[in-house]
């Protein structure tokens, strides 16, 4: 594990370490054991967490809140038998049937609505889907993109480094591919990875940038143009280095 990845993960230590896969947790601990700067950063994050938690739970409570709560609860205690006698049996029967009909109607309308449109996706689910389904997978284990949208990379620089036809990734577990993924290989930067694209209308939290400058978890960068949201995922090499090189060449 390198320092860059370690710095991304140390904020999860020690409280959330068990949320990491055990191999990653062990790799992080091994790295900290041999890297004093990262260990120092981890200790500082731990101190910050403790300080924040201490302040978070320290909330002054109004003096009379307890009495007011008990008084209000006493006033609102349900009276025994009230609900049972509020409506005659016939009225309650009709209300029950009407409720069921309304429920069925809502269920039917909801089903039609749900089936008629693909759900929108959070950027994080796109990133996670790409990481889980593409990273370090051989081409033979991937499906060719089903052309559920016209996946064409507009930027000529990216066109040059995208290899072959796109593969498809399903994120929302419905039929059809949600993402089109191109293999990216840039030997001069020793970079290998993926360029993933998804129609901008499918994303609820479109990344603000129109160029790849935001790095998520040190593994991906995201940006958008008029039609698509793009995510670049690194398998080998650094996304940050790729972006820096990209931006300097653009300038």
């Amino acid at each position, binding site marked *: 594990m390198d320092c860059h990845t370690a710095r*991304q993960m140390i904020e999860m230590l020690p409280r959330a370490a068990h*949320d990491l896969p055990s191999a990653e947790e062990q790799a992080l601990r091994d790295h900290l054991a041999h890297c004093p700067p990262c260990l120092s950063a981890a200790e500082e994050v731990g101190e910050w967490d403790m300080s924040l938690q201490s*302040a978070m739970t320290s909330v002054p409570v109004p003096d009379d809140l307890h009495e007011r709560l008990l008084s209000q609860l*006493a006033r609102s205690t349900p009276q025994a038998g009230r609900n049972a006698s509020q409506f005659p049996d016939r009225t309650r029967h009709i209300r029950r049937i009407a409720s069921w009909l309304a429920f069925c109607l809502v269920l039917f309308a909801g089903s039609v609505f749900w089936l008629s449109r693909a759900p929108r996706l959070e950027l994080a*689910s796109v990133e996670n889907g790409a990481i889980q389904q593409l990273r370090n997978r051989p081409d033979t284990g991937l499906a060719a993109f089903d052309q559920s949208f016209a996946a064409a990379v507009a930027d000529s620089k990216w066109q040059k480094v995208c290899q072959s036809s796109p593969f498809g990734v399903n994120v929302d577990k419905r039929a059809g591919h949600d993402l089109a993924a191109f293999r990216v290989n840039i030997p001069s930067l020793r970079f290998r990875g993926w360029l993933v694209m998804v129609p901008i209308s499918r994303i609820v*939290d479109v990344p603000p940038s129109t160029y790849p400058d*935001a790095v998520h978890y040190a593994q991906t960068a995201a940006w958008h143009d008029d039609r698509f949201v793009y995510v670049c995922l690194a398998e080998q090499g650094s996304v940050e280095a790729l972006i820096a090189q990209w931006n300097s060449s653009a300038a």
Partner: protein
Amino acid sequence: MQRPLAPGLAELVDEHYRAVFGYAYRLSGSVIESEDLTQQTFMLAQSNLSQLREPRAARGWLYTIARNEFLRRRPVPSTVTLDDVSEPSMPEPDPGWPEGELTSEQLQAALNELPIEFRVPVVLFYYENLCYRDIALQLNLPLGTVMSRLSRAKSQLRRQLEKHLLESHPG
């Protein structure tokens, strides 16, 4: 007209009202709204007391009621804007934690700057002391989404708090 409370309800209030109020305050940032949320939480608890089968789980149960009531009143927007919660760029040289004790008010001011969808997981993490996996379960979100939101929220929170602390302890 006042009636006797349901059996066990007064004890539930005695033991947990401070924690529930604090939780509501961290979520809402308003004393008045927190009092109202606390009251509503215990009224809903009273109506559903039979659902609480394990007394040791009472606090988490009350937190869940309070959080659901808070989110019902102020639903998370369907579009998550990230303009105010920018991605942390890592790794960077750490500037170090400024001197000075963090106060409840400074923390709340920083929390109030976070959009709800980022503030809620932070409160679950630091106030309710839940791990990432439990937060994902409670909020019905993928674990990766929780990690991403907490990462961004923590970074934003830290920047805000550092600013507050440096302003209150210049030099």
